[in-house]
């Protein structure tokens, strides 16, 4: 349902009213922005010198290094979590009850524990010494592996039953059916959801700040605290720059998810990919799977 159904094509009175609302709304927003700007100006945050710090080669190198270490953790955690998700998903769909139960308990438990606690516990050395980087990578792998496993499971369950029956009828073994019939189709249909979860993984790398891993946010704090310009700390400026980097990275990934979804829609072969839900909060504690095909959007 498009928004336009909710209201009539405006007549003369409504047009005037909407215009008034528009003007009032705009003035309200402008007032809010102006007030924030005034406060910033009042504290001397608009001085041009505060932005000069980003002209130093050293600061730029810092930002670049931080970006690299964020991307390094993201790449490692992304790859490991997907590999782990495949293992967990296979265990979750196993024919052997004990294996299935272990997977269910593991997935439910680690989806319910705050990711920060998993990472922090690994860092302070619950299972032996660990550098911040590996604590971060391992924590992200465990948590996102569990979430991605559920996404994959939803994809496997969405593959029509006839496919499996046909594969068995052809004489394929269980492993062959899983590897060559179920998973390729599950991954294809769930690719948008998988990429959306990768956006969450990327955002969660910022938890490295808390365990002192020198990623983007940590270096933002260092830059803001160590380069005062005329007695003013450039906190606002660094937050704007680093926020823009994060939002840019996330939007690129979200756009990729959308692109994959639309490409899948165009092709008529196979099952329809799930909707790309962009960054989405994922629950735990036995709630329904995220982004299963035919959830919210396709009801009714």
């Amino acid at each position: 349902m498009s928004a336009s159904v909710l209201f009539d094509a405006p007549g003369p009175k409504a047009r005037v009213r909407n215009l008034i609302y528009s003007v009032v709304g705009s003035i309200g927003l402008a007032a809010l922005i102006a007030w924030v700007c005034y406060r910033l100006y009042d504290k001397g945050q608009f001085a041009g010198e505060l932005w000069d710090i980003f002209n130093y080669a050293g600061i730029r190198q810092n930002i670049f290094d931080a970006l690299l270490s964020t991307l390094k953790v993201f790449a490692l955690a992304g790859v490991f979590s997907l590999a782990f998700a495949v293992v967990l998903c296979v265990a979750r769909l196993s024919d052997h009850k004990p294996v299935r139960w272990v997977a269910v308990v593991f997935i439910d438990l680690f989806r319910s524990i705050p990711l920060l606690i998993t990472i922090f516990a690994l860092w302070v050395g619950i299972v032996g010494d660990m550098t911040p980087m590996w604590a971060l990578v391992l924590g992200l792998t465990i948590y996102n592996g569990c979430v991605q496993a559920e996404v994959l499971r939803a994809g496997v369950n969405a593959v029509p039953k006839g496919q499996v029956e046909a594969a068995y009828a052809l004489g394929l073994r269980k492993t062959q059916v899983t590897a060559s019939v179920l998973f390729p189709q599950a991954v294809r249909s769930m690719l948008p959801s998988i990429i959306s979860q990768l956006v969450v993984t990327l955002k969660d790398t910022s938890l490295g700040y808390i365990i002192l891993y020198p990623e983007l946010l940590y270096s933002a704090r260092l830059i803001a605290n160590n380069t005062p310009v005329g007695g003013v700390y450039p906190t606002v400026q660094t937050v704007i720059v680093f926020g823009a980097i994060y939002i840019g990275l996330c939007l690129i990934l979200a756009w990729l998810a959308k692109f994959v979804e639309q490409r899948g829609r165009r092709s008529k072969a196979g099952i329809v990919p799930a909707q790309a839900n962009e960054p989405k909060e994922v629950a735990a504690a036995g709630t329904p799977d995220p982004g299963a095909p035919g959830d919210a959007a396709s009801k009714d």
Partner: protein
Amino acid sequence: MNVLLDNLALFREGFLGTLWLTVVSALLAVVLGLVIAGFRVSPVPPLRIFGTLWVNVLRNTPLTLLFLVAFFVVPKVLFPGVNSFVLAVCACGFYTSSFVAEAVRSGINTVPMGQAEAARAIGMTFTQTMRIVVLPQATRTVVPPMSSIFIALTKNTAIAGAFDNVDLFNIQKTLSNDGYDIAVIFVWITLGYLIITYAINGLFRLLENRLEVAR
């Protein structure tokens, strides 16, 4: 020595801190989320633009960055001398409101088009259509994603603990300084979070069953 029994008062303080933070920021998130979702479907362009910007910026920003802004920029520049609880509520609430707004909007999208058309045909205004026809029906599809959002919110409040707000995650600092075994501390803290998340899950199960209507 028993970590839980020796420090019952501290654990209670932490547990209540987490619970309180979750409840207050959930309320803020729902109110803001409803308003923003209303903005996004409203006939007034500036409001629509504001709603879209709000959702896209907040959803693509890491929560830790929001906490950084809330705890180091806001007190210094905008409101000096706000206590850490209010700041934590703002960070969690604003972040979660963007997810609530999206859930509400996709809930509105699942209401059959004919319903809104019928409401319009009998002469209801935008507010009436929303209040009497669309939102009550959207509620049913919005409730399940809401439970996921609130559970995620509960887990996210742990980040506030790292920024010196007193909650379950925060008390581990005091306890490990007292020399208790870190593994045992984390077992009890985790249990505290599990209690809250499973309680939310159960509550929403009940709510879903009550709202369920045969179609």
